[in-house]
């Protein structure tokens, strides 16, 4: 809809009860709120919940909400099915059989407090609070709540997304971009403007590069991918960098199907064109950037022809993309998870920041804008760290990390060091784990069989989730039922506006993450939890930690609140970015640092470079001979968010099986037909199986697999564990292989071969069984 004003003029504001947060519509109570996990996603779209007798009956997108304008993706459209799902956990339970037997005994919340609290206290006293590891998932309704609980309640410095080696998700982009710009930047799709696309201050981006992600399917990092479809309808041109022909690639001016793991080389090649052809913005660079000389010297080491060879691309296309991007005013880059999931992650981030800095696109309308979480609700993974006792903080599992990991910019402990502690008891054994809204075995755990083995060594595991997952069955001693989105009061501010979530219904004894945090926090460390209840806790976050000038109730009544700061452009010229109030950027030099000073500080090369993936046609040619395909993992779909939604009949109707995507040439060579089950195997004898999806829309040397699959319809008990090891793309990935500074993991660029699953020939022993038996090789 190019005409946003027409859309606004047609919305019937009376029919949609503008200004009200709850009303009656026939037999239904309608609640105006936002949906954010569970089930999850990184956003919080405006939604109207229709409830009857405390039960969610149906939903509709809220057309008055500027964040999503009433649009919903299929996951939220299916919210009633998810919320009322019969498999949901209804009560707290304690394990009554051996781990993995899937035998449980219902207990009350009081019993749960009485078992867990003394046990945690005992571990704290006997071994120290640092021997507890706090685990949380991504983007869920837990991103400041659980860190607060882990820091202040468990008093542990060891907080992690667990087995996610190399911090390979988002955090590096945040940290790397902050080194260049002083803060974080996102594509300006008018998200900071309450009038959105109709705002007079906003400009349509002329060009956007979609780089290493499919934002339509992932909606990652607080950014709704479909905002960019609006931009396209208003004239934005696209460049797409992805080995897959995504929707964007098929409509792009240039599609660059770069070889997985070579994005940094490509970025340097583009910088080479822009610098040598003098296509950058000289005035902007002169005024606002520093480091061009050093960068100019470095890019000479990467002539376009050489880059084209590294990336398997046509050099003319690289030039064309660079020229289109540099000529466009304004231009922006929508970057994704592929950035972290390669070895030279930190190098790639600086190179891409240099691309939009040199071309004068930072803090301009329609370019890359510097955003903060609305009303200063800024803390996430470091929330509550002021309560962490110094002696526990000193024992943070980040090994002998120097540089970047040592800095408090990375609040998490190092997953590799935690793994080492689990496996060897060094530097100290891990005594307990608290896992909330995460399913490591099915999803984030790289080398999932190794993670499975390592977790066996933890004596006491508390697990909180809406569903019984493979990880829960395998390891939980106590299971706590977590409420779904419609059942909770909460707030959301990634990035803007500040949004309220309002409880509209309830489900048996499930409690919200906030309620669980407050209830256990009070019992474990009362002085750090002076909160009466969940709402009191939320109010502290938005008004004391942040600067929302009202109460939670005010926010709920109003629904959402836009923030002037995020709506302001050219903040660097207005002295709004630096603590000293001077003009410029909040970096040590006050400028955009093309070779950032912080990188020196962190012992990283501040200038971009290419590093071959550790397994590739070039770095391991002998492996490549027998494993001649490049495997990239983690492909998203509209139906699922990570390991969620697999138990929803509607989602499985659309997407019944895990899919591995390959080019017809590849399929033909290996005798594979559309819909065949195939094994994807690597040289370590590790494999997983998915169904063949054959398409011309992928680089012919690449196969792309999905992640997060488990099968809630299958046997729960061990060794099956809902068949979580059958199709798990993390059967073949590795932990402990990281890039500079311990950052980045090459899980999107390894080598594999593929072959058909043939009944009775190579399917005799289930992978799950092998994993649990411990002789996981060759599937024979």
């Amino acid at each position, binding site marked *: 809809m190019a005409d946003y004003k027409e859309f606004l003029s047609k919305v019937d504001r009376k029919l949609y009860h503008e200004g009200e947060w709850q009303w009656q519509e026939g037999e239904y109570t309608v609640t105006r709120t936002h949906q954010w996990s569970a089930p999850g996603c990184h956003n919080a779209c405006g939604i109207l919940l229709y409830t009857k007798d405390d039960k969610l009956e149906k939903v509709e997108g809220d057309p008055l909400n500027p964040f999503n304008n009433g649009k919903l993706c*299929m996951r939220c459209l299916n919210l009633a099915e998810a919320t009322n799902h019969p498999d949901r956990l209804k009560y707290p339970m304690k394990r009554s059989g051996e781990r993995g037997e899937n035998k449980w005994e219902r207990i009350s919340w009081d019993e749960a407090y009485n078992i867990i609290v003394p046990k945690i206290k005992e571990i704290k006293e006997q071994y120290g609070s640092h021997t507890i590891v706090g685990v949380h998932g991504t983007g869920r309704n837990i991103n400041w709540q659980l860190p607060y609980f882990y820091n202040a309640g468990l008093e542990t410095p060891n907080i992690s997304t667990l087995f996610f080696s190399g911090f390979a998700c988002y955090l590096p982009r945040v940290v790397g971009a902050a080194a260049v710009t002083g803060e974080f930047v996102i594509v300006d799709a008018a998200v900071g403007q309450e009038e959105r696309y109709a705002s007079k201050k906003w400009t349509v981006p002329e060009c956007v590069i979609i780089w290493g992600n499919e934002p339509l399917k992932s909606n990652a990092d607080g950014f709704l991918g479909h905002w960019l479809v609006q931009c396209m309808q208003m004239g934005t041109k696209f460049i797409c960098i992805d080995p897959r022909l995504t929707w964007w690639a*098929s409509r792009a001016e240039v599609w660059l199907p770069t070889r997985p793991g070579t994005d940094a080389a490509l970025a340097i090649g583009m910088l080479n064109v822009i610098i040598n052809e003098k296509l950058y913005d000289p005035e902007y660079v002169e005024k606002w950037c520093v480091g061009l000389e050093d960068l100019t010297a470095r890019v000479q080491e990467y002539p376009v022809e050489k880059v084209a060879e590294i990336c398997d691309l046509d050099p003319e296309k690289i030039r064309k993309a660079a020229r289109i991007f540099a000529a466009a005013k304004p231009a922006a880059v929508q970057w994704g998870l592929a950035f972290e999931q390669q070895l030279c992650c930190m190098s790639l981030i600086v190179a891409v920041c240099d691309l939009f800095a040199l071309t004068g696109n930072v803090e301009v309308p329609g370019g890359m804008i510097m955003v903060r979480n609305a009303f200063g609700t800024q803390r996430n993974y470091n929330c509550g760290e002021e309560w962490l006792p110094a002696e526990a903080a000193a024992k943070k599992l980040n090994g002998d990390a120097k540089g970047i990991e040592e800095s408090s910019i990375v609040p998490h402990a190092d997953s590799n060091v935690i793994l080492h502690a689990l496996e060897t008891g060094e530097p100290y054994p891990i005594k307990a784990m608290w896992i909330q809204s995460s399913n490591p075995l099915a999803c984030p755990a790289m080398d999932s069989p190794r993670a499975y083995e390592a977790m066996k060594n933890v004596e006491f595991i508390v697990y909180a989730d809406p569903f019984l997952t493979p990880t829960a069955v395998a390891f939980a001693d106590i299971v706590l039922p977590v409420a779904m989105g419609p059942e909770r009061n909460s707030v959301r501010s990634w990035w803007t506006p500040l949004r309220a979530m309002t409880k509209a219904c309830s489900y048996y004894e499930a409690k919200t993450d906030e309620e669980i945090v407050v209830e256990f926090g009070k019992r474990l460390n009362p002085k750090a939890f002076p909160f009466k209840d969940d709402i009191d806790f939320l109010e502290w976050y938005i008004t004391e930690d942040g600067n929302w000038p009202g109460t939670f109730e005010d926010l709920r009544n109003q629904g959402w609140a836009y923030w002037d700061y995020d709506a302001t452009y050219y903040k660097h010229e207005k002295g709004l970015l630096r603590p000293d109030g001077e003009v410029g950027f909040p970096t040590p030099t006050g400028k955009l640092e093309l070779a950032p000073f912080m990188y020196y500080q962190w012992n990283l090369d501040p200038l971009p470079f290419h590093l071959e993936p550790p397994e590739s046609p070039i770095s391991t040619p002998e492996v490549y001979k027998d494993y001649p395909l490049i495997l990239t993992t983690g492909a998203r779909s509209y139906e699922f968010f990570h390991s969620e939604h697999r138990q929803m009949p509607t989602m499985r109707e659309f997407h019944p099986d895990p899919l591995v995507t390959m080019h017809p040439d590849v399929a033909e060579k290996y005798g594979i037909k559309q819909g065949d089950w195939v094994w994807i195997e690597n040289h370590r004898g590790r494999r997983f199986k998915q169904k063949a999806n054959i398409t011309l829309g992928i680089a012919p040397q690449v196969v792309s697999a999905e992640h997060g699959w488990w099968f809630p319809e299958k046997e729960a008990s061990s060794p099956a564990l809902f068949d979580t090891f059958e199709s798990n793309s993390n059967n073949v990935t590795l932990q402990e292989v990281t890039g500079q500074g311990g950052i980045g993991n090459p899980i999107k660029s390894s080598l594999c071969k593929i072959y058909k699953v043939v009944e009775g020939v190579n399917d005799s022993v289930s992978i799950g069984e092998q994993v649990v038996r411990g002789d996981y090789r060759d599937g024979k």
Partner: protein
Amino acid sequence: MANNKYGILIDYEYCTGCHSCEVACKKEHDLAEGQYGIQLTEIGPWKINDDKWEYTFMPVITKLCDLCAERTAMGKVPTCVHHCQAWCMYYGTVDELTEKMTGKTRAVLITPEQ
């Protein structure tokens, strides 16, 4: 002669294949597995030339569609149009939609039985 019959216009150039229309319709009408008031078709991808690909999604409206009679009676737009994430669906009279179609190269106008 004025045509005030209601219909749906789909500017499928921008349809992303997100399935929202299909699921919205299924939920509104409580349709069984395998049944759709609107169902996506996918064409391609295939290569036209070095810089150009064919990769098109187009939802087809079936005989199960009642143009969301209950919703439209209340003054709401059909749920598929309401939720379409790519903003590529429009609801209106044939006259309004024909006008909207002008200049578009890949759009279809459907007037389900009503």
